[in-house]
């Protein structure tokens, strides 16, 4: 992908944060990636570097506890790794995970198909559209 996020790691992280994303087909996945690319387009290169670095940390961190990289863990074990990062006592790590989580949620829920799938149907016509 143009952002150069490691695709296998990224997809494993996305499907842990939003389990429904596992069922996205290729076209839908590309839609998610495009939303994220658009969001990050004007962001500093340093932020994109941090994002790539953080994903690689997520991939290799579980070697210590689980003896395997993130992408080879079960869904439950992946969730435990991310929960650990989310609750880490070091605020910078929590913030890093927060940033990654935000980007993933934007990519998934920023797509009109996802909004429709959860039953969100706000319309500029307001009450008129409902009636």
């Amino acid at each position, binding site marked *: 992908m143009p952002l150069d996020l490691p695709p296998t790691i990224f997809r494993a992280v996305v499907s842990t944060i939003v*389990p429904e994303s596992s069922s996205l087909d290729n076209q839908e996945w590309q839609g998610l990636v495009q939303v994220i690319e*658009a969001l990050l387009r004007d962001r500093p290169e340093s932020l994109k570097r941090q994002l790539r670095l953080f994903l690689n940390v997520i991939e290799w961190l579980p070697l210590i506890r689980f003896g395997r990289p993130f992408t080879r863990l079960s869904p439950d074990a992946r969730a435990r790794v991310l929960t650990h990062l989310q*609750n880490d006592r070091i*605020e910078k790590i929590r*913030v890093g995970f927060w940033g990654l*989580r935000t980007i993933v949620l*934007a990519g998934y*829920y920023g797509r009109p198909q996802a909004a429709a799938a*959860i039953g969100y149907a706000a319309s500029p016509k307001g009450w*008129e559209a409902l009636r």
Partner: protein
Amino acid sequence: MTRVSYDIVIVGSGAGGGTVAQELSSLCAQGARIAVLEKGPRLRDEEFTGRELEMAGALYEDGGGFLTSDGAMTLAMGCVYGGSTAVYTGTSMLPPERIIRRWNVPGLAYADLECRACKFMAQNNVHLLKDDLINENNKLFVAGCRKLNYNVEQFPVNIKGCRGSSLCNLGCPNQAKQGTDRVQLPKAERNGVEVVTRCQVLTIGEKTLAARVAAKPAGAKGDPSPWEPGDYQIDAKVIVLCAGAVNTPALMLRSNMQKGIPRLGCGFTCHPAMIMVDEHPQPITNFVGHPNSYYLDQFAESDHFVLETCMYFPFITAKSLAGFGEPHSAFMRAFPRLQMILVLACDKADAINRVTIDAAGKPMVDYRFQPEAIHGLIQGAITSAKISFAAGAKRVHMPVARHTTIEASDAPRLDDIAAAAEFKPGRTPVSAAHLQGGCGMGSNPSDSVTDAQGRVHGLPWLFVADASLFPDSLEINPYITIMTLADRVAERIQAEAPALLGR
């Protein structure tokens, strides 16, 4: 570098800038040249689509992703013709008398602000929505509050022709909100004020500004700037800064004005907020109707929080739910059954929270959560959950609990479940949209940046007229108060026009 000159230049077009522009526009008839410089674009009516990420990117600073310097809180600020008045919900509140008294600014009297507030509330069609336009998201809040004997109150709102799109925070697609983009700026322009969009002020000096006009990016929303892209030197006899509580102090800091004004950037507050999301057994009307119609402020003094009804869009909702995975997804899948309540903490100006700039001159906000603000968020979350359960919610998302999904059967234990220890910056979703302070009013440079009518100490040609004037948190939605203070600034400039402008 193109050089132009004006009598008065106003930086920013939100509640402050729009008001100053309107109030001073009568001077145009006497030959005065007045310009408003706005960093954001001016969108055409048909460009307000209500699509979440598309509109956030077009209307907000950093697309809505401006973060505090530690990355733990998102700060929302409009960056468009009309500033944040284009993206608020139109809730129009008089400044609380107890707060104005507490500010204790010499020369700032509550009665004066109240009188001016009434003027703008009439001008902006402020009224209470009729009951048949209130959706169930709001009605459930009212029902829950009444069951608990809380003093719930209705927000006066400044809307005209509302169709109930619920998309206020993405810019009204029906032009119903009466912000400065719909009322004050058009009037000012009719009277001869020029509004220059896509124009970012880089620095200010003695009666001069350096600014850069950006070209319209390919595919972006909005009209091109009326000025050619490029760098400008703009001379002005009077400069009025209305760029908001982050960008006004940052601009002054970038212009090396802190010498002699040690309080510049200090006293930043923002009503840090959590969005409470609660699930009902049945679908409710939530993404239709005005989203922000009721509030509860009886705990502002005792427990430092205010509750307001709210309704957000899929991404913002997802971001506001703590955690991830199946429990998170379960709430998202329940969207048509979700009730939402905004918990606003009443933070206080302190020595730590302030606006600074980085090496490149970009604004930074240093913000640490004070114990009172954390207490406010925790108690607000508990109270919000009690209200939702009282209204019939079957489960509540509690962002400050170890396990964030709380079932109705656990309602009696809410006080034990929510805990300050579970409030962790970077884990707990917190955002803010009521940005205040940084150029506080007062009596002298040791306690403030400006006097009670917005004149910067020691610089007779420079005024501030936005929320950065607040010496401390307002504890309620701020736009009407911003307009009243801006009105005072404009009145003073008008009174001193012969001396200031030579007319």
